[in-house]
């Protein structure tokens, strides 16, 4: 099964193209461009529309709509006099839950929401009303976290791509956003509408020039500058370009077409279509950290982890690429081995894992902190955080092998300080593998190769 992004869109969030396109020539052009984008989607083999809306802010990580049929009447906070939009949406709940799970496995705070009367934001309602009337294709909607940075937003896209590939989806990615978002602060007559300022218009033209050349990653890199220059300081900033760029693997050689660019109450409204076919110009460099897992501002409520943050491992044994082999199981989602061995081997119906510690894939950090510094001086560390990280790593390896934690049958655990750590380790065990019920042996040992306090050796069924 091979899923992919077959089309990406940038569309404006305002209700005017839905409720009163006829009142302004520009609004009608936006509406027509929306209709053209809809036709392109209908002519494709798309089976999923993914909405990242700047008008649904979240605080607790990211939220994903998982109500199979959100229904209500939407009224815009500012433009309530234009009328109401009755919406009844069809959500791909399987995808929503899978994306949520993928977010968590990549270190993000994430949750699904499914509540009667949940106020689907105006941007998502407008986009789905115009791109997907009659709910021909199921959709999924994700919030914008008010505190997220580029790393977190990039990981959000990567976990989405994980699910697209796993489920074989042909997905359309949609960023619902304005370009310049400075609206007139006074009511205006429809015929008076124009881009708020010449400066905003010039920036918008530059953005559209890049997009028409398929240079999505360049826009992502300019995102902070653009936000400073032509954006009202709303909390969600210019993040959707980070998300859309990451959804397209940060490419600069997409095939882009601007279907319309007009003003809506002063803001820059554009409908842009980006197809994955290379425009032939050759890709450019991607010179920001290509983050796979998020290890940032998380768990700040957990007092034991307030003082002990995930610490990059800057010293210790050399790391190896996992050894390949006919029955080897290896994954980028688990930390690199400290020797020449695979993450696991599958023999018949059984999977044998190499010893798994808490180190994080990618940056090699240790959740809960290392047990000693470079000079060998002991450090305070959080055994519960380390144990949780071990279990997460085990889950990732088993998932790669086509199995899961539910199939673990035997575990041998190694602790470097039984007196100090057994209780915390045992507590996390009870919350995780203890619920599965494998046999277990816990041993005290003098040391492990890296400055970690716990490691587990696992045997599982396929």
């Amino acid at each position, binding site marked *: 099964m091979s899923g992919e992004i077959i089309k990406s869109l940038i569309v404006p969030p305002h209700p005017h193209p839905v409720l009163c396109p006829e009142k302004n020539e520009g609004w009608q052009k936006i509406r027509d461009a929306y209709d053209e984008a809809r036709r392109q989607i209908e002519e494709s083999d798309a089976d999923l529309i993914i909405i990242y809306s700047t008008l649904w802010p979240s605080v607790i990580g990211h939220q994903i709509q998982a109500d199979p049929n959100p229904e209500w009447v939407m009224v815009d906070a*500012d433009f*309530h006099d234009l009328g109401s939009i009755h919406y009844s949406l069809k959500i791909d709940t399987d995808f929503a839950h899978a994306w949520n799970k993928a977010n968590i496995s990549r270190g993000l705070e994430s949750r699904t929401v499914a*509540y009667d009367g*949940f106020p689907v934001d105006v941007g998502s309602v407008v986009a789905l009303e115009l791109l997907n009337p009659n709910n021909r294709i199921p959709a999924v909607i994700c919030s914008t976290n008010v505190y997220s940075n580029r790393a977190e937003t990039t990981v959000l896209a990567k976990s989405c791509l994980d699910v697209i590939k796993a489920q074989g989806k042909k997905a359309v990615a949609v960023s619902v956003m304005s370009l310049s978002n400075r*609206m007139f*602060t006074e009511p205006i007559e429809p015929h008076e509408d124009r881009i708020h300022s010449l400066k905003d218009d010039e920036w918008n033209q530059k953005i559209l020039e890049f997009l028409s050349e398929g240079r999505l990653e360049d826009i992502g890199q300019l995102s902070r500058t653009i936000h400073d220059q032509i954006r009202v300081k*709303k909390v969600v900033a210019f993040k959707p370009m980070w998300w859309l760029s990451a959804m397209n693997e940060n490419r600069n050689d997409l095939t882009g077409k601007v279907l319309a660019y007009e003003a809506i109450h002063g803001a820059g409204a554009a409908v842009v279509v980006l197809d994955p076919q290379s425009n032939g110009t050759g890709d450019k460099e991607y010179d920001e950290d290509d983050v796979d897992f998020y290890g940032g501002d998380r768990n700040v409520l957990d007092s034991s982890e307030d003082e002990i943050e995930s610490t990059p491992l800057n010293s210790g044994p050399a790391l190896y690429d996992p050894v390949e082999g006919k029955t080897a199981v290896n994954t980028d989602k688990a930390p690199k081995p400290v020797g020449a061995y695979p993450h696991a081997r599958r023999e018949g119906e059984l999977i044998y894992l190499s010893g798994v510690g808490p180190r994080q894939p990618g940056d090699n950090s240790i959740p809960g902190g290392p047990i000693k510094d470079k000079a060998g001086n002991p450090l305070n560390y959080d055994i519960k955080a380390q144990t949780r990280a071990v279990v997460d790593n085990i889950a990732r390896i088993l998932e790669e092998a086509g199995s899961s934690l539910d199939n673990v049958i035997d575990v041998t655990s190694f602790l470097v300080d039984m007196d100090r750590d057994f209780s915390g380790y045992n507590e996390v065990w009870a919350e995780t593998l203890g619920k599965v019920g494998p046999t277990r042996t816990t041993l005290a040992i003098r040391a492990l190769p890296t400055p970690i306090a716990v490691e587990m050796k696992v045997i599982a069924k396929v």
Partner: protein
Amino acid sequence: MAKGSIVAGCLAPHPPHLVYADNPEQNEPVSEGGWEQLRWGYERLRESLKDVDYDVIVVLSPHWQTYVGTHFIGVEKCSSKSVDPVFPNLFRFNYDLTIDVELARAIHDQAKSEGMSVKMMENPDFRVDYGTIVSCHMVRPEWDKPIVSISSNRSLSYYSVEVMQEMMMELGRSTAKAIEESGKKCVLLASNSLSHRHFVTETNPPEDMSKEHITSHAMHLWDMRMIDLMRSGKSQQIINEMPEFCDQAIAESDGGALTWLLSAMGVPSQPATLHGYGTIIGTGNAIMEWPCHTWGEQ
């Protein structure tokens, strides 16, 4: 007709967490209580207002955000369900409230005559924001008083704290004048917290108070400073320090409610009463009351 008056002004924050604890039947059936300091604070505020005669609650909420001027609900009967898009697990509230459209329009007209950009919201499908509902519910859970609901004009986002304050000072004066001419007695609510930096994780259960605290000591210091200024009647000092407060404490007063409230009360030198302080997912929340109805007796 006797002159109308502001009988009390309140800083009335709107964390949905408080209603969650109070109304489990309308929400997740797993509440274990929590945030008692603030819930008790609202109890003390309600007790303080118990014998105060008033006709209307006038509330300005930062969760009805408007960019094209300041808006007022102009629909007399508002009935629907309010679901918090940020904490939908905590707040899904069926409301059925009455708007004092006459007073809302009077404030609107007064502000318009002073050159402000204002608009009446007359779409019957409009959903009242959860900030308005939480603050009003915590102050008057009986819902037997009509309210005036005022949007938060995001002029700070467009311009600066200084511009926001100029506009909110004018809106406050217009509010006071319209109330005076209406002959009505009003309680004013500024529906906002103080420092406003959230944690980005949620405990299970959300009301696990062993994990609740202010996000940083700097935020705590700002909250205490603002409370001290309010308790000592230094309203003008609050207005003077608002730019730094908004910037450094990411204060929710950036929405203008506190400045509007202070202006409507005439930037009082009388002290406010602190009824309660507590943190909600890291943000600082104080329940304050300026008992304006007593000032004439001093």
